[in-house]
């Protein structure tokens, strides 16, 4: 896949001295959904703002569709649609006219059929003659997305699209993102909901304190960093872990009724058979066995923690 957005060693220091990005390098492939995951203040919005031309990079290069965002800004910005995190809308404008405004602003001739189509896709068509201030929060967020789509971008940035959005709307949003990808739009979304990245992203980038810690295929990331746990329930609680089992680094549950063993899901030798034999040899009787796969959340917490340590 060719990359549509290339970011090279991007640094951004704000006037007050805050270093928001400390050398980010990132290739975004055409047609993918990339989720940028990171806590608040990690630099996600700054990264998007510099790509879209709202903030100026302190150092580094960014290209979109093969064009430099600084010297060929007209070409790059035409390709980009931006949905900001804050719901910013002119309160007295009508839904349909605000979409027409966006389309014109991006240098496109009026096209009512297209604008109506976008409104229908986002279930806003019935509200096309309403003022934006009369809409509910979820609708207003959809208007923002509709505005960005009204000028037919090839790359869509969604900054925290589901922050403060109810569960149902979040599912709708995910469905929309997937539909857009099928139409060939590249989507970059930032989120601090790991569940969201897990549900829709093709690749996941983890960003913290202005540094991109990693970018990987979601499944590979899950596999590489994913850990599994086996929880062995015993019929009789144990006071301590028997010496014979010391080499397995087991964790005893608080009441002593279970032993927990962690292993890498992708390892060739998981050591499960040996462990179970040893448990039996130690004279313990099993009542149940459960396994659990670590979620992206566990992975994320671990990554951020490792970085701090």
């Amino acid at each position, binding site marked *: 896949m060719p990359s549509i957005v290339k970011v090279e060693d991007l640094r951004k220091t704000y006037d007050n001295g805050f270093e928001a990005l400390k050398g980010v390098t990132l290739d975004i492939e055409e047609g993918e959904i990339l989720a940028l995951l990171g806590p608040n203040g990690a630099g996600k919005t700054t990264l998007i*703002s510099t790509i879209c031309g709202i903030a100026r990079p302190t150092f580094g290069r960014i290209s979109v569709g093969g064009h430099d965002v600084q010297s060929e800004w007209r070409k790059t910005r035409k390709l980009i649609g931006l949905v900001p995190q804050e719901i*910013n809308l002119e309160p007295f404008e009508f839904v349909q006219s605000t979409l027409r405004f966006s389309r014109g*602003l991006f*240098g496109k001739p009026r096209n009512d059929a297209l604008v109506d189509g976008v409104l229908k896709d986002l279930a806003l068509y019935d509200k096309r003659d309403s003022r934006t201030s009369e809409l509910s929060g979820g609708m207003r967020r959809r208007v923002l997305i509709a505005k960005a789509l009204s000028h037919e971008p090839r790359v869509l940035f969604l900054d925290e699209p589901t922050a403060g959005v109810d569960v149902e709307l979040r599912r709708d949003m995910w469905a929309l993102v997937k539909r857009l990808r099928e139409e060939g739009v590249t989507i970059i979304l930032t989120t601090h909901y790991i569940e969201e990245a897990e549900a829709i992203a093709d690749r996941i980038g983890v960003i913290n304190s202005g540094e991109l810690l990693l970018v990987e295929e979601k499944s590979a990331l899950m596999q590489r960093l994913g850990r599994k746990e086996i929880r062995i329930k015993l019929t009789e609680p144990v006071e301590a872990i028997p010496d014979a089992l010391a080499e397995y680094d087991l964790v005893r549950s608080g009441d002593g009724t279970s032993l927990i063993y962690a292993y890498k899901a992708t390892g060739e030798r998981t050591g499960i058979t040996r462990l179970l034999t040893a448990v039996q040899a130690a004279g313990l009787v099993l009542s149940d066995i459960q396994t659990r796969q670590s979620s992206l959340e566990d992975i994320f917490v671990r990554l951020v923690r490792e970085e701090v340590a």
Partner: protein
Amino acid sequence: MNWYGIAAIWRFEMGRFFRSILQSIVSPVVSTALYFVVFGAAIGSRMPEIESVDYGAFIVPGLIMLTVLQQSVQNAGFGIYFPKFIGTIYEVLSAPISSLEIVIGYVGAAATKSMLIGLIILVTSLFFVDFSIVHPVLMLAFLVLTSVSFSLLGFILGIWARNFEQLNLVPLLVVTPLVFLGGSFYSVSMLPPFWQNVSLLNPVLYLVSGFRWSFFGTADVPVVASLAAIFVFAGLCLGIVWWIFRTGFRLKS
């Protein structure tokens, strides 16, 4: 050039004007009528003619300038300040539209509005006093140049302002006094010599004088000086706007 973008901004800003069409038209008409009742009829009847122009007619150009200047600064200032205030400015900043095109859109719309209001006042005043315009084409030229240059000033103000108070304070404390002291309602030749000289430092004097010249053929300062002053002023504002976009002053980080 991104013509669609310019048109989108212009149309959007004009939309604000037409949404409140009643207020946009009624308020200048009412205030003009009041000025004519007070200055034209009540006081004007006791005033001698100024340079053989009836006082009621004499104040017409000044009255138009007063409103055009205030409206230009206010409309252009609000036009760019509001999107900054509510955050919708992100869209303009991320769009494929140059700073020049943004200025043409916002300043063009603000200037259009104040020219419309200026013409409405002109028509209204015809109901109160009799006068004819000696140089109609130059009168329109003065109207356009004044509207554009003071809309530029308003645009700068809108970008500079950090809150509504600052946005309102400059027109109130700077523009309005300059207009009142710029010979809108009197000829500077009526002032003592010292204050005549002080008045020459007031840029608005040149505008009002030139505008009045286009009506009656008489002026406080030579019409060439008026034209020069307006071009210098517009050039200065353009320079500041250029600097704002080059540095991203209060627009981009």
